[in-house]
């Protein structure tokens, strides 16, 4: 057991971040994932063409971002009264009513963090694609890692669903363009996060393209 710690080359080892178990690193074939044999945590999932896919999907999602958040999601129509609203309108109304903390949380989790996450993915995957490795790249990767759980678009979609079901027998609901952009945006965002192979990205950054 002493030999493990005295091995001068530890690059062939990995540790589980759920239970600290030391494991020998094995290459993971694309489409397969590596799980910790002791605690069961997923350690690594390998993806085919990870850099290209991440780049393409993050561009797609960014194009849909503005219409998705600023255009009205839907219009309610009851007895001739019409009212439509976007994600941004919701944040502004919360702020107007004096709910600063809640509006800030919604602003960050449904608007800012998804945008920042996508921009980070775009910049990182573009750099890797062009084989350029600016000094700021590791910082961008770390920022993405920490922001990942704070973008809550898929949760917002269920929030929209709840709104719809609450309203459908009280008013006529028209879906607006913003709704379809939002669904597309959400789909592209989820796929871009899934396409990204963090292990591979860090490897490429460390080796700066070399072997």
């Amino acid at each position, binding site marked *: 057991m002493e030999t493990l710690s005295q091995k001068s080359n530890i690059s062939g080892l990995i*540790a589980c971040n*759920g239970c600290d178990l030391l494991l020998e690193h094995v290459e993971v074939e694309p489409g397969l994932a590596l799980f910790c044999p002791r605690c069961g945590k997923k350690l690594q999932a390998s993806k085919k063409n990870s850099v290209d896919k991440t780049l393409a999907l993050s561009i797609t999602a960014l194009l849909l971002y503005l219409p998705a958040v600023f255009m009205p999601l839907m219009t*309610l129509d009851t007895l001739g*009264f019409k009212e439509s609203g976007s994600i941004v309108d919701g944040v502004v109304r919360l702020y107007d009513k004096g709910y600063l903390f809640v509006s800030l949380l919604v602003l960050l989790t449904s608007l800012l963090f998804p945008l920042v996450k996508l921009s980070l993915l775009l910049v990182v995957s573009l750099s890797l694609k062009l084989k350029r490795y600016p000094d700021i790249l590791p910082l961008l990767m770390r920022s993405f890692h920490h922001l990942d759980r704070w973008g809550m678009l898929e949760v917002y979609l269920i929030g929209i669903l709840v*709104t719809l079901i609450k309203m459908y027998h009280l008013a006529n609901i028209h879906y607006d363009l913003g709704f379809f952009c939002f669904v597309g945006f959400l789909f592209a965002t989820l796929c871009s996060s899934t396409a990204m192979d963090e292990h591979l990205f860090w490897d490429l950054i460390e080796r700066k393209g070399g072997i």
Partner: protein
Amino acid sequence: MANTNRHITAMEAGLALCRDCGKLLPINGQHGVKSGFCPRCGARIHLRKPDSMVRTWALIVTAALLAFPANLLPVMRVDYLGVPEESTIMDGIIYFFQEGSYAIGIIILTASILVPLFKIIGISLILLSIHFKWKTWLRHTALMFRVIEFVGRWSMIDIFAISLLQVLVNFGYLTSIEVAPAATYFAAVVLTTMFAAITFDPRLMWDK
């Protein structure tokens, strides 16, 4: 995948794992942990997250206290023909069940009541199990923590729905929906429990 039966941890082998990029670093020596920062990504390196237990306890106790106003105060006010009616989170769920929207009622019941409860009780149990060195259900406890980490964000459903409803349902005297004080407390519960899951270091469960 050797060594699985012998269960050597990185710490026992004199190695520390960077939480940000997953790089293994020797605790002593060149580029070791003594330098304090990961040579690959620049993150601060710790063998275990600093003050993990104390911080997690503090956040969980805070969340448990905030859960009372979050559930007892009204989260939403509906004005219908000039008659205001305030409703708590539970009232909203009962409304859906009475309307026959069972699926959505169950979704909100799960996201707004069961998930925060599960997180607070679950993390408290995990912390207690570390204090008292209960080691029998480790694999299950580890799974429970991963579930807690995953479901945390889903509690925001109600907040998002209300933020949208108050914009869409705004027909003057006829009917309108407004957000009410429990929203702030509820959002704070989600935030503190999510931070509790972040400050907790699951490796502590496995340490001898």
